[in-house]
C-alpha cells in the first residue's frame, strides 16, 4: 500500500495550496459591501424571484442514463486487464454483455430519451 502514500501527500498539498491561496487572498483583499453590490447579477436588473427554480427533468434523465452506462464501463476495466488470460471465453462473454447493453441503447433511441427538442 506504500505506493498510495504519495497520492495522499499530494492530496494534502493540493488542499493546502487551494485553501492557502483563498485564505491568503481573503486576508488582504478590500471588502466594501453594500446592498446593491451584494445582490446577485442579473444584467443590472433587480433580481426576479429565487435563483434556485425548477429546471427541466431532462437533466435527471441524463444523470440516470449516465449511471447505467458508467457502471457498465466500470465492469469493462477488470475485463480488459485480464483479457489475455480469459481468451475466447472472455471475448464471447463480453460480446454478449455489450450486445445486451446495445439493445438497451437502441431502446433509449427509440423512446427518444436522447432528444433535446
Amino acid at each position: 500500500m506504500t505506493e498510495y502514500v504519495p497520492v495522499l501527500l499530494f492530496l494534502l498539498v493540493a488542499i493546502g495550496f487551494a485553501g492557502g491561496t483563498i485564505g491568503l487572498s481573503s486576508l488582504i483583499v478590500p471588502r466594501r459591501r453594500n446592498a446593491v453590490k451584494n445582490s446577485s447579477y442579473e444584467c443590472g436588473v433587480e433580481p426576479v424571484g429565487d435563483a434556485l427554480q425548477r429546471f427541466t427533468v431532462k437533466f435527471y434523465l441524463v444523470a440516470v442514463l449516465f449511471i447505467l452506462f458508467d457502471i457498465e464501463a466500470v465492469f469493462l476495466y477488470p475485463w480488459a486487464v485480464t483479457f489475455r488470460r480469459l481468451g475466447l471465453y472472455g471475448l464471447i462473454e463480453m460480446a454478449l454483455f455489450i450486445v445486451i447493453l446495445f439493445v438497451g441503447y437502441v431502446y433509449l433511441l427509440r423512446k427518444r430519451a436522447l432528444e433535446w427538442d
Partner: protein
Amino acid sequence: MAAFWHDPNVRMVFWALVKILVILQAMLGVVSYMIYAERKIAGHMQARVGPNRVGPLGLFQPIADVAKLFFKEEFIPDGANKVIFHIAPMLAVIPALIVFSVVPFGPQDALRVTDLNVGLLLFLAMSSIGVYAIVLGGWSSNNKYALLGGLRSSAQMISYELPMGLSCIPVILLAGSLSLVEIVRMQEHWWFVATPFGLLAFAIFMITALAETNRAPFDLPEAEAELVAGFHTEYSSMKFGLFFLGEFANVISISCIAVTLFLGGWNGPWLPDAFKFVWFFLKLAALLFFFIWVRWTYPRLRYDQLMNLGWKVLLPLALANVLVTAIVVWWRAQG
C-alpha cells in the same frame, strides 16, 4: 536525528514531498505561460499582436494578472451558500493536481511521484470529481445564470465521461495493465496511436477531453453570449483565479494522460534514457497547442448538437471500438 533520516519511510515521504512541490511549482509556471501563449496565439490567429505591454513581448503579463487577481475585491452574493461557495473553487483545482501523482514523465523512478497499478482509474476518478466544482459553484451562487451553467455543465461532463472512459479500454486491452508506467513500456516499439483502433480511440479521447475541460467548442457552461459567465458569474478575486487555474490544470493533466496512453509517453528516437523526458514534454507541448488551436478555430456547438455528438456518435463508436480491439487482440494471441 541521523537514525530518523535513515528510516526508509521518512526518506520516501521526504522525496515524495519534494517531487510534489516541484510538480506544483512547474504546473503553476506552465499554466501562467500557457495562458500567455494562448493569448498570443489567439492574437496572431485574429491578426492582432496579443499582450505586449508588460515586460519584453508582454512576457510579464501572467505575473501582472495573478497579482491583480490576488488583490481584487471579493464579494459573496446574498443568499449564497457560503461553505459550498468556498469549497467549489478548491474542488476545481485539487483533482486536476492529484492526477499528476501518477503521470510518468520519464523512465526513471525519480521522474514520477508514484506508480499505482490502478493509475488510469485514479485519473478517471479525479476527472469525475472535477464535475462537482462546477455544479456546486453554479448551485451555491444563488444566481440564475450560474445555476443554468452548472446544470448544463453537469449533463455535458457526465455525458462525455462515458466515451472518454470507453476510449481508454482499447489501450488497456493492448497493454494488459492499468498502470501508466506499464502502458508506456508497452509502447516502446509501437505507439498505440499508430494502430487503427488506437487512432480512433485517440480521436475520441481528445474530443471528450475538450468537453471535459469545458474548452471551446464545448464551452457551453460558460457561454458568455447567453449565460454571462456561466457557473463562475458570481466569483471574483482568487476564487475566480482558482477556477481559471483549475481549467488550465485540467487541460495539462488530461494532455499528460493522452501522451501517456496514446503517444508513447517518454518513448522516442535518438535521445539517451536520461533525456527521454524531453520527448514527453515535446508531445505535451504539441497537445497543449492543439487545445489552443481548436479553441480559436471552431465555433461553439448548440446544446442539442453537443448532447447528440456525445450520446449518438461518440458513445456507440467507442463501444464498437472496444469490441473490434478485443477481437483483434484475441486473434493476434491465437496466431
